[in-house]
């Protein structure tokens, strides 16, 4: 609990940071609903002086929006589920290892992330192309797992570590078998960590560009589509697509945020 005299500073500082973060988003949304004469002027106004839905209508009617949006949503969701599905059991085991082994394994996981993405993307893309994974969701999910799995595992190891072994022992004393301990006690208690890891995996996949560029020919993901509009210079389409790109991020974050709770382990075991 913060002392009451520091609260105004705390809220004021938070407000400044929030405004600083939201300003680019505001300009992006404003551009997507403003007519050209409102934007292409030497002294643009901060507020929205005129509104138009022309850019949104054009983009929503475009054949180039829905397939990339659907592909990005599917790939990001499957990546998140696969990452959690693979990493959660592994992370639990790692978290219960003696510490030299635990940190050895964690360092090993991160060693795979020491090489810059652009350095390994080409050989990986070549292998995936050989497997016929071009333009497929599966190819992108596998590629995105390369990026996300080590971090998801790392986040989850931290979450499982925080759950005292005594809680598991107490559950066993109360009659839970080993699987029941995991599914009824450990994993529910690790939900905040799982939510963070899931959010991280989803966002990483949603925004991923390098592998998508190599592994997409006809069916683009949404970031590739926005890149296309930015490089081909259609300003209003770019702003509208970019706004659309942020909407699912807000929805997913809002959905997962309710699992992000502090102090969930308070009173779990008697000291």
């Amino acid at each position, binding site marked *: 609990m913060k002392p009451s005299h520091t609260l105004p500073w705390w809220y004021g500082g938070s407000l400044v940071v929030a405004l600083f973060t939201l300003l680019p988003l505001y300009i992006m949304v404003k551009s997507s609903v403003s007519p050209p004469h409102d*934007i292409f002027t030497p002294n643009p106004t901060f507020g929205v002086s005129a509104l138009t839905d022309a850019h949104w209508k054009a983009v929503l009617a475009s054949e180039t929006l829905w397939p990339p949006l659907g592909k990005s949503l599917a790939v990001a969701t499957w990546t998140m589920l696969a990452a959690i599905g693979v990493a959660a059991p592994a992370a639990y085991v790692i978290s219960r290892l003696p510490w030299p082994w635990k940190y050895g394994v964690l360092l090993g996981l991160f060693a795979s992330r020491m090489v810059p993405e652009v350095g390994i993307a080409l050989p990986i893309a070549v292998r995936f192309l050989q*497997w016929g994974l071009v333009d497929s969701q599966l190819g992108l999910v596998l590629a995105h797992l390369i990026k996300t799995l080590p971090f998801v595992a790392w986040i989850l190891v931290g979450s499982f570590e925080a759950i005292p072994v005594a809680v598991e022992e107490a559950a066993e004393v109360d009659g839970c078998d080993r699987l029941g301990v995991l599914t009824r006690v450990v994993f529910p208690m690790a939900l905040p960590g799982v939510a963070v890891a899931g959010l991280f995996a989803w966002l990483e996949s949603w925004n991923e560009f390098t592998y998508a560029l*190599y592994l997409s020919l006809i069916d683009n993901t949404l970031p590739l589509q926005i890149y296309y509009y930015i490089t081909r*210079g259609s300003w209003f389409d770019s702003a509208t697509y970019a706004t659309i790109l942020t909407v699912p991020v807000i929805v997913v974050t809002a959905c997962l945020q309710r699992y992000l709770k502090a102090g969930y382990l308070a009173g779990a075991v008697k000291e």
Partner: protein
Amino acid sequence: MHRAVILLLGLFIGCEQAPEPSHNELTVMMGLAEVEWRVMREQVFPPFEHQHQVRLRGVQAEAPDAAKKLVAMHRAKRMEVDLITQDVLQLAPLVNAEVMEELSAYREAIPATALPHLIEVGTFDGTVFFMPYRPNVQIAYYNEEKFRAYELHPPQTWPELLAVAQRFHAAEGVGRVLVQGTLTPNTTTQVIEFIWAAGGDPLVLNDQGSVEALTFLQQLAPYLSPETRRADWNTVNAFLATESVYLARNWPFGIHLLVQEAGKTQIKAHHGWRGPVREAHVLGGEVIGIPKGARQRELALEFMQYLMSKPVQETLVSSLGWPSFRSDAYGSIQAWQEPYFAAVQEALTQAYPRPQLSYWGQLDRALTGAFREIVYEGQPVQATLDRYHWELQQGRQHNRR
């Protein structure tokens, strides 16, 4: 084993591999805006599809990305693309990576009316790798209202360019003339144009013409727009549209954006300015190539000839305002495009191909480095260029070895 794992994972996550392209499909990779793709799909592709009973699949890829994708597919021995049209300033990486088919045997397919320089850019050490398709050149965009307000005319010579830059700077307290100065290949292209205009050779870099060109740029520097450091082929359009810049050279694709999308009808174009020796532009544009291992090689060769044909070239002139590489292809463009098209045509008469070099990266670094030191940091011109000349020679010798 691998396939079994993939199949299992595919079943697990409920998605499947993309279907293989069928035998009557031809995949072509181009870097186009949406309006350009529409012309391809509605006007250019259908006659060929009908004649050959084939379906054309258009793949969008910007020039550097196209090179990355082709290299990956070539290494995977799984070429998914049958034909590409590629930026002439981005050909060397494809040839160096040995991913393009040699087309010397089809030299006769090039029309006699073709722009010779566009044939030259597709030829490496006497071997033809690319066929001419579409010439392009940078033109000078200017804000007519601002020029009129200050009783100025678009500059035709270097002294006029300097005078215009000084007048804007004096009147508004900030530079309104811009050179693409992001120290990327955009800068290289514009520096080469200045050096050529002074009769210099960018491959030598410390000759009289090069010294004269960089000396002029150093004189121009205090009057340049501060946006110069952020200006590339993409951002220049925004600077012109928001009227933070009144004069800049850029590629003609900006015409549509500035006039049609941003509604800036006061932005006009002219061909450019001459230096002490001549007016000079770097020849841009696109050429046609066929990747090694293309599944539909024979059909791709047919399509290559179709793209070079007079009817297709006339369609591209009429519908997109692209100048043709054929001197016998004419088209009727829309009225609003006419002055811009005339500027491009005029500039094309003074366009020269950039040399195709295996050590292009070194030249790129030398030119942008010299620009940075001389224009941004005010270093002495001759001494700086002497140093870069020496570095360039070392790089060239190293490359030969």
